Every structure is written in structure tokens, then in C-alpha cells.
């Protein structure tokens, strides 16, 4: 009976995902400034190979995967919460808030001449995180709570536009801010290290299970808020929890890697046809697909014109975008 059997194709899809992940991991460890070389060869031949792989390539690949996972998770939550297939993680003003906070820091300035290394590093990254959360908080206060989804959406757009304008203004005033913000807005995975991985892993360990626990709430929300309420969904609490997941995940990703577009939007759409639309599986699948997408894009970014690099956001758009076009075409045909 169709009700009982999960499509056999799904198990195959998960297996394929696993296989692709292993492949991407091996590629990530093997692609360096000289192009591709099997990691075991590097380990054997190069005395600095252990450090290269362990200190640079491994955390960078894992970091990219974690950023992608956080963005994919946020994308799935945003699309379920707003019942909109075009929703993406930056909707609630998180990216605009991060950008403005960083620009403020750069314009007002920390005492750069002091050799206070970790404080300076924490400064920009911490500013992005704080700004991101503050952006969402501003949206929530503008919408007077998470009670009305449409109002939340509109408030998010307004906050994004206004804060974005503020950032642009600050970029015009300060040359330092201009340079750093340009890099921020393109997104960058080149400098992710183990501390960044730890931080993002910590956030993912909290937000992913929480979002998964709310999977049935997200399913019920797809029927509209009235029906969801009659089905017993505690709408206010549920929405607040989902917004919190969205804010935290996006803030962590943006703080470490800047604004990487498209992963949050594309990952749920890529996951749905193969791995199921019920949020029970979609939340996990979207995170996994997002991580895979960004890790693969990062590998390609450093491989194609090694030792130079392409902006990783361009590659996520190319890979994800081309695949979505193929899906669309197949659907119409």
C-alpha cells in the first residue's frame, strides 16, 4: 500500500548524498594551491603535508560544509515558516544587521595599532554575529512579535533595506570600511580555521535538533495558520522558536564567512525532490545538501585557477542554479 512504503528511491538518494560527501571530503583535502594531489601522496611526500592538510585544508573544507549546513537549515526553516518557496535565510534583516555592525566597527574603529590579536579577530566576527541577531531583533520589534507572518516578512524587508542603506553610507565615508565590506558581501571561505569550525559546529548542534523537533509544526504550518491552530499547534511559541533557529544559524554563518547568496534558497529545493518534502526529512536533508553544495563550491573555487581563487558565491550560484534550471526544465517537460 502506498501509505506504508517509503519510495525506494529515497534510500538511494541518501546513499548518493553520503557518497558525494565522502568524495567532496577527499577532494577538499587534496586540492591546494598546486591543484589536485591525492592527500595520501601529499602526506607521504611533503614534510609539511600534515600541517597543510590538517591546519589549512581540513578546517576550510569542514568550515565551508558547516556554513552551508547552517544556511541550508535556515533556508528550509524560512521556507516552511513563511510558506514561500522563495524565502531565504537573510529575509529577517540578519545580513543587513551584520553588515551595518561591521561597518560601524570599521568606521568608528578599534585601536588597530594595538597587537590585541584575538580581540581584533573577535571584533569583526563578533560584530557580525551581534549585528545579525540585532537585525532580527529589530525586525521582531518592528513587527511587534512573531504573531503575524506577513507583518514579519514586511518588517524584515524594511529593516534589510534601511540598514543596508546605512551600511552603504558608512562605506562611502570610510575607505577601510569599503574594502572590508566589499569582501564581506562577496563571502569568503578562505580563512576558516578550527576555531571557526568549533563555533559553527556548536551552533549547529543546538539549532539542527531544535528545528528537527519542530518538523511536524512546520508541516502543519503548510496548511495555513488557521488549520495549524485547530490541529493544536502552539503557534506563538512555535514561531518564536523557529525565528530563533533562523536568527542563530544565519548569524553564525554570516559572521564566519560573510554573505554567501543562494545556498539558503537553493538547498531545500534541491533536497525536496530526492529526499522528501515532509520536514521530518527535509530539515536534515536541506542542511546536508547545503553543506555539500558549499563545500564543493569551495573546492572548485580553489581548484579551477589555482593558485588563484574564484569567489565562492559565484560557484554556488553556478552549481545550484544550473541544477535548478535542469529541474525546472524537466518539470515543465
Amino acid at each position: 500500500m502506498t501509505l506504508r512504503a517509503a519510495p525506494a528511491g529515497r534510500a538511494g538518494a541518501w546513499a548518493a548524498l553520503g557518497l558525494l560527501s565522502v568524495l567532496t571530503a577527499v577532494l577538499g583535502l587534496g586540492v591546494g594551491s598546486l591543484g589536485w594531489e591525492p592527500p595520501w601522496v601529499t602526506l607521504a611526500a611533503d614534510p609539511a603535508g600534515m600541517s597543510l592538510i590538517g591546519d589549512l585544508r581540513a578546517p576550510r573544507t569542514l568550515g565551508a560544509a558547516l556554513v552551508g549546513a547552517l544556511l541550508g537549515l535556515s533556508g528550509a526553516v524560512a521556507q516552511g515558516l513563511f510558506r514561500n518557496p522563495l524565502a531565504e535565510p537573510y529575509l529577517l534583516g540578519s545580513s543587513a544587521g551584520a553588515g551595518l555592525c561591521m561597518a560601524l566597527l570599521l568606521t568608528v574603529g578599534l585601536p588597530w595599532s594595538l597587537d590585541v590579536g584575538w580581540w581584533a579577530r573577535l571584533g569583526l566576527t563578533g560584530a557580525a554575529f551581534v549585528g545579525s541577531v540585532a537585525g532580527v531583533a529589530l525586525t521582531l520589534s518592528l513587527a511587534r512579535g512573531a504573531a503575524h507572518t506577513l507583518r514579519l516578512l514586511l518588517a524584515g524587508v524594511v529593516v534589510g533595506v534601511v540598514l543596508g542603506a546605512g551600511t552603504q553610507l558608512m562605506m562611502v565615508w570610510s575607505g577601510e570600511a569599503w574594502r572590508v565590506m566589499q569582501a564581506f558581501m562577496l563571502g569568503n571561505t578562505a580563512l576558516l580555521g578550527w576555531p571557526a569550525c568549533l563555533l559553527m559546529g556548536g551552533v549547529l548542534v543546538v539549532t539542527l535538533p531544535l528545528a528537527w523537533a519542530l518538523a511536524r509544526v512546520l508541516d502543519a504550518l503548510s496548511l495555513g495558520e488557521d488549520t495549524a491552530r485547530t490541529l493544536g499547534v502552539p503557534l506563538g511559541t512555535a514561531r518564536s522558536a523557529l525565528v530563533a533557529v533562523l536568527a542563530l544559524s544565519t548569524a553564525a554563518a554570516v559572521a564566519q564567512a560573510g554573505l554567501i547568496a543562494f545556498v539558503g534558497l537553493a538547498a531545500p529545493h534541491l533536497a525536496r525532490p530526492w529526499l522528501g518534502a515532509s520536514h521530518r526529512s527535509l530539515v536534515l536533508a536541506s542542511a546536508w545538501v547545503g553543506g555539500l553544495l558549499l563545500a564543493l563550491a569551495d573546492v572548485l573555487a580553489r581548484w579551477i585557477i589555482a593558485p588563484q581563487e574564484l569567489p565562492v558565491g559565484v560557484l554556488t550560484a553556478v552549481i545550484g542554479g544550473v541544477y535548478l534550471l535542469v529541474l525546472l526544465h524537466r518539470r515543465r517537460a
Partner: protein
Amino acid sequence: MTTPPWITCLDLHATRGPRTVLQGVDLRLTGGAWWSVVGPNGAGKSTLLRCLAGLLPAAAGRIDWRLPAGHTGPTLAWLGQDTPGDEALSVAETVALGRLPHQGWWPWSGGSAQDRDAVEQALVDTDMTWAAGRPLGALSGGERQRVHLARALATQAPVLLLDEPVAHLDAPHQRLVARVLRREAARGRCIISVLHELPLALQADRLVVLGAGRLQAEGPVASPSVHRAVEQVFDQAVQVRCVDGRWAALPCFDADADTP
């Protein structure tokens, strides 16, 4: 009516913004019957239904619920107008969402034998078994409507509230819905539907006639006073007549009926 009413509305008032939509509605709804709420546009039918569902708080008055003893689980199932749905979810998965009130909120709960049986039964009742594995996005508007009806049935609640359940359905499927609702009423449920389609509404057991936010009449479908209330509330644009043993609403669009 010897059975005690399941839902009692006492002097119910409801507002939408500054407008008072319902005033002074006193209603006693019992189980084991199909109640049809009729009235012209803006009479407050949907508002009444939403108040009963708990989606709209009453501005004044109250609503008392007294279901038969020994009832556990959800008290009502709701089918709203133009329910959205996740286009990528399959029909079976969408209908299974109706079982949520019986299950926990953990992602792995659900899928018990009772749930599966309820879903299968609901699909059979609405003639949607053929589409069980298809995604919702592949269905027509009318088919989606039936899926949502199946979802409401799958909840197996004693009270079923339906707002325009046949809006996109053709005549054969309207008949199917009428049969389903009749059968559920016969099984002892309290079915309350808001219907624009008077011919279908007249197949119910009892009519609730609303006009201008007030209760104009309430009684069995065959009652002549109810018929007169219906004709009056629709400004004599319809006439309720018995045709071939069935109640029908005949349109009465004569030119002299409404001389300017």
C-alpha cells in the same frame, strides 16, 4: 431534541475591526446531525464558524462546549476556505497531517496502525485512494479540495466545521461530499458547514439562517418557516420548493420582482 446540545452559543457577538459582524446569536447545536449555515454575503456565516472553531474570540457572549462523556482526543476538525498546502507533499502525507492532534510533536511519532487506518478510510470516503502517492501540486483544484476534506475526516473528531467545502467541485463530487457528510452525521458527528450552494445546503438535516449578522431562523430543512426565512434573507431572489420529493432552491429572477 432530547439530546443535550454539544455546542451552545449564548448571545454571541463578534467583530472584525470596527465592524460588528455578529450580534446576539443564540444557537444550540447537537450531534448526529448535519447543520448548514446559509445566508447572503456578509451575513456573518464564516465569522460564526470561526468563532465556533476558536479562531476568532467572541466580542461578547460565550460559547459552551459539552461533548458526550468519555470522549478523548481532539474536539473539532476544521476545513477552511482555500486552504494552502505544500505542493511537494504527497496526498497521503497531507491527509496524515490530520492525525496530528492524536500524535505527539516529536518528529518520529505518528504512523501507528490507527493512524494508517484513519488515513485509508478518509481516502476511501473521498474517493482519493487513486492519488495517494501523488504530490499535491499535480492535482487540480477540485482534487485538492477533496484531499483537504479527507484530512479533516482523518482527524476523527466529533465536530466537523467546514467553510465552503465544495467551492471548486463539480456536481458529481458535490454529491460525493454530500454523501460523506450525511454518513458522518449518521455516525453521530456534528457537522457544521457554511455553504453558498443552496441546493446542497438543503440536503442537510437542519438549517441555520443568518442575515445581517443576526440569527433569522433555525430548524429542520423541511420546516416552512425556515424556508420563508431563507427566501426573505435572500431578498426573494430564490424560492424553496419541493421538487420530486427533494427540497430545491429555484432562482427567481423575474423582472417585476425587484422593480427599481
